[in-house]
């Protein structure tokens, strides 16, 4: 369809080619005729050039205007984007991170809908929180509690737990929704999370004592695996993403019955982690509303599988040493060994 042979400047080119010939002949009549044609064509080209330049200037003016508007709009969009990001960040603190991310990816359905799913549920609670809160200044209590929740939350998120809610001094986390690694791995992640929380708490207690918090928080933990209803509860106007069901209550009762600093789990959880942790079976418990005896296991420590990976020492005099060799690389190990040797020398010299 396109005409490859046509040249938009054919007339101008032809005139130039003719000029080369005419000017070479020294024929005055020929030169005069050519000059007349050249004058006519040149006049046309000048007019065209004037029009085209004018048009080009108009286009340029429009482009400059559009560019200015674009810059203003881009600036406005950037500022709106920053506002939305800040708002998203603020809102995100009120939601489980997985739900927050899914919402902003656009693949989370905010309908009132729930489903039955096998989950591993975790509860923790601070022992004697009411008495502790009476013995501390409210500001100090807030600081310690926020530090405790921040550290525990970091651990829960790292293990893939969904933080359901903080209820006063209690914390409720579950594994298996909205993301699941399969019920076995969900249960294992939950127990490993609880152990890491327990270890972190020991560090926090040590630091708190140094900062003057004489009787720092001590925590009970309970874990159960079972079918729960999970999803969006509430109304179209106000939703809560949470879990409900008898198995949730079992986790809470286990926590309530746990010794201070202890982690209790049900047989359903234990079955998934028995190769992972040392556990002691306790007396089965009967719970209101649960139609079976709950076999109870107390988590003692991670299993070392023949290799010593954890060094733990505790004394009543406020000395606590806990070294997880799994999480220390070769370089850090030699540095740690040097420090321990120096510490040992100091102890022996005293």
């Amino acid at each position: 369809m396109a005409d490859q042979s046509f040249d938009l400047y054919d007339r101008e080119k032809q005139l130039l080619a003719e000029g080369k010939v005419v000017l070479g002949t020294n024929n005055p009549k020929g030169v005069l005729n050519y000059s007349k044609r050249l004058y006519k064509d040149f006049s046309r080209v000048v007019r065209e050039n004037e029009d085209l330049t004018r048009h080009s200037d108009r286009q340029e003016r429009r482009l400059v205007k559009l560019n200015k508007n674009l810059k203003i709009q881009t600036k406005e969009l950037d500022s709106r984007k920053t506002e939305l990001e800040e708002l998203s960040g603020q809102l995100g603190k009120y939601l489980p991170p997985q739900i927050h991310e899914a919402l902003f990816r656009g693949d989370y359905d905010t309908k009132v809908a729930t489903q039955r799913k096998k989950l591993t549920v975790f509860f923790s609670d601070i022992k004697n929180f009411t008495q502790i809160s009476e013995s501390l200044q409210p500001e100090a209590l807030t600081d310690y509690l926020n530090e405790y929740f921040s550290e525990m939350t970091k651990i829960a998120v790292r293990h893939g737990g969904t933080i359901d809610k903080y209820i006063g001094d209690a914390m409720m986390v579950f594994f298996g929704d909205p993301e699941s690694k399969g019920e076995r791995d969900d249960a294992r992640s939950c127990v490993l999370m609880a152990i890491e929380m327990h270890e972190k708490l020991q560090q926090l207690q040590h630091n708190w004592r140094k900062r003057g918090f004489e009787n720092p928080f001590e925590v009970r933990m309970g874990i159960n695996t079972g079918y729960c209803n999970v999803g969006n509860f509430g109304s179209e106007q106000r939703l809560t993403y949470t879990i409900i069901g008898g198995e949730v209550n079992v986790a809470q009762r286990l926590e309530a019955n746990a010794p201070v600093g202890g982690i209790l789990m049900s047989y359903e959880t234990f079955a998934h982690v028995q190769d992972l942790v040392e556990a002691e079976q306790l007396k089965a418990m009967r719970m209101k509303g649960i139609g079976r005896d709950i076999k109870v296991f107390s988590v003692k420590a991670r299993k070392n599988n023949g290799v010593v990976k954890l060094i733990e020492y505790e004394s009543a005099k406020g000395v606590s040493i806990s070294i997880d060799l799994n999480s220390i690389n070769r370089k850090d190990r030699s540095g740690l060994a040097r420090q321990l040797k120096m510490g040992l020398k100091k102890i022996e010299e005293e």
Partner: protein
Amino acid sequence: MNDLNIQETERTPEIKLSVSDGVFSIRGESFPEDVSAFYGQVIESIDLLKENIPDRFQVIIELIYTNSSSIKALYRIFEGFESIRQGGGNLDILWYFQEDDDIMEELGEDFHDRFPDLKINVKPKN
């Protein structure tokens, strides 16, 4: 015989020529990669009309955007209209521009001034 029916693309306008109906139209945006190749056939078809001038000829130009090279091609097309007019043809040229599009309006006026023998009616498209 010289009829044209060129479909609109992202870079080129729709161009229609019906000799029997005496209608020629250009609609859309014009910034072809090769202006000579695209407009060559159009310029040649209009030039051919000089040999068989229609009684009445309706021209509709409805461009949204045109680059400078396309304007050069439009000059050639309008020179063809000028020849038809000089040959006794009765042409009616409507140059439409989108409301608020001062660039296409002013370009229409430039053509109006440049070809005073042609009846070019520059008006907004409703």
